[in-house]
């Protein structure tokens, strides 16, 4: 069967234990009488299909929960990954400080041009907050990585974060493609027309502020 999508991106969720990586991927809530079979086993990865500027993009999103106790994620997880969400918990100072260690781990193991984004999760728990939004922004500037605060519990900015990361990967790939197929070169190359109107992102996404 013919390929039914334009791009396939492998994404990873990385960060200390307990920062809510699994909640970002997994939303099920238990009821009092039954236990869900799925939540007992846990999710390894999800496939999601999104539309990015008219292109059909498949995201394969991996949770690394359970691995992080080794302080590093094994190279196997990094293999082929094109985007990484670095997650910390705004109510846990240590998890924020460890973002630097995770970045070092990525630099040592992942492909050099992997796209990254920092997520300050649990921003709904304002009374317990230990890390200000400004400090998150500052760290992001330091590493020149995009940043957004999220609440997996309230589904705040989670979808936005995935769209943003995916869009950055796509832009990088198209730039590479362009470099290897310069305009006016061989015919048949996939070239973006300069006058092609850019699609506006979904309305609620545009309201979020990021760096």
């Amino acid at each position, binding site marked *: *069967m013919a390929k*039914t*999508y334009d791009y*396939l991106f492998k994404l990873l969720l990385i960060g200390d234990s307990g920062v809510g990586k699994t909640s970002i991927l*997994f*939303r*099920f809530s238990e009821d009092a*009488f*039954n*236990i*869900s*079979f*799925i*939540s*007992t*086993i*846990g*999710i*390894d*990865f*999800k*496939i*999601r*299909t999104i539309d990015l500027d008219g292109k059909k993009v*498949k995201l*394969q999103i991996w949770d690394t929960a359970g691995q992080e106790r080794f302080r590093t994620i094994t190279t196997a997880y990094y293999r082929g990954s094109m985007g990484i969400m670095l997650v910390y918990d705004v109510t846990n100072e240590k998890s924020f400080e460890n973002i630097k260690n995770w970045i070092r781990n990525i630099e040592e193991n992942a492909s050099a041009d992997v796209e990254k984004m920092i997520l300050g999760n649990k921003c709904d728990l304002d009374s317990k907050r230990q890390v200000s939004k400004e400090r998150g922004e500052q760290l992001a500037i330091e590493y020149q990585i995009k940043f957004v605060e999220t609440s997996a519990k309230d589904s705040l900015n989670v979808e936005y974060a995935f769209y943003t990361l995916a869009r950055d990967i796509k832009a990088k790939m198209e730039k590479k493609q362009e470099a290897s197929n310069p305009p006016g070169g061989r015919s048949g190359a996939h070239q973006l027309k300069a006058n092609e109107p850019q699609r506006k992102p979904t309305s609620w996404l545009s309201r979020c502020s990021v760096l």
Partner: protein
Amino acid sequence: MSEVENKEGPAEEEQKDYVQDGRNKYVVKCKFCGSKMLDKKSGKYMEAEKELPLMRQDNNRKEGEIQSETIKEFYHVENMYTFENIGFTHTVANHKYLSCADCDAGPVGYYDMDTKHSYVAISRIVHS
């Protein structure tokens, strides 16, 4: 699975209004939240008898017991990237179970680690 493969194909078309040319005629969605799992015509209809754990396990069941039922109709999906939205659980006895990517309801089917093929239980999804 050879016996299973034999039953694939357009032979069932006459009896099942949701099957056309041996494939799903309609979009496959989650029963609970409507999340789109498969596009039209992207799964091959097949009949096979396979035990699948119940979506909800009784809290009073015996320890270690898994309550399951026999599923008889599936959509066979050869490439996992054919799915629009789907979750894969950790591996249990050479299977990964499939779940809704949006509300995590499941298992809605299973993924075979040997063949790398997926099987969606028709009784656990809705067509639209």
